[in-house]
């Protein structure tokens, strides 16, 4: 899903309107990246403040939504680095942690995408990412060369990444 070709208006009122329209998509991205809703909202606030300050320097030939997502990602990276310096209690980014709350929607998406995988891909994906098995263990278990296991795993990840409407 590539950001649409929305251009950023130059006057303040129109810019504010643009931000209001582009905000949900930016927040959706940040929700996926951040560990919590509160972190996502904090980073969104930082992003909006930043792009508001920089609105005069925006090149109108650029894609507005892509510009906003880019700014949001940079703010997220800064926020993440700050949190890492402050210690683990802040925890901006715990998306890779199994302790992260898994929403029903996410669980449903994952289940749906796993169903689209072949049995071997599914076993490799779950074996490696859910059960903590090493690539060598998986290769030995399935009697496959290590590189073949990696190729299957990469394909499985690509299937996991696809949206419902995309073809497998």
């Amino acid at each position, binding site marked *: 899903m590539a950001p649409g070709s929305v251009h950023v208006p130059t006057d303040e009122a129109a810019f504010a309107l643009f931000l209001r329209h582009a905000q949900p998509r930016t927040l959706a991205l940040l929700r996926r990246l951040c560990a919590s809703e509160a972190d996502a909202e904090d980073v969104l606030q930082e992003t909006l403040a930043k792009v508001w300050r920089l609105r005069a320097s925006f090149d109108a030939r650029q894609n507005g939504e892509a510009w906003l997502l880019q700014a949001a990602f940079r703010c997220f990276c800064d926020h993440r680095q700050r949190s890492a310096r402050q210690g683990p209690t802040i925890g901006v980014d715990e998306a890779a942690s199994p302790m992260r709350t*898994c929403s029903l929607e996410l669980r449903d998406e994952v289940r749906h995408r796993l169903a689209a995988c072949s049995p071997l891909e599914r076993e490799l994906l779950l074996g490696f990412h859910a059960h903590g098995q090493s690539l060598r263990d998986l290769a030995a278990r399935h009697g496959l060369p290590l590189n073949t296991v990696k190729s299957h795993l990469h394909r499985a*990840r690509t299937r996991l990444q696809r949206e419902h409407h995309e073809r497998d």
Partner: protein
Amino acid sequence: MNETEFTMALHECLDARRDPLDEPTLCRHLAEHPEQLESFAVLRERLAGLSEPAAAVAGAATTLHARRRPALSRLYVIGALALAAAIAIAAVWPTPAGPTPPSRGILAASLEELRPRAGAAVSFTVRQCWPPAAWPSSDRPRSGEPRRPDSIFETYEMRSEHR
């Protein structure tokens, strides 16, 4: 770094169980190519969510192994069993025999009307009577003092409403 190189680097990073966001080159690429941000975020989030539906998918997969991760719930169960065992042992453990403390129960209680005033419909005092032996040593009357084996512990007052 083009898109293919990025994809390969991303998978290598995941194969090594590293967080792609800890890799400066990957982060730089993503910042320069915001059109790839959403699909990257989807992959990262779904990989993190993989451990959740593992049990649901386990039935579909034929040779899935039991989860290795020590489940937190197992620790809770063990803790609960230990607590239940401790309570059961404490309940049946013989208590050491000794002098029984004097009873401190309420022997009697009475309601006594106090100083009716204008605006106060009625007020009562509840008194409880204690056997002298049950008095705390600090409250025990000294010789010559009048013995008052009772104590006021509550006063109620009901006020009439303004008209």
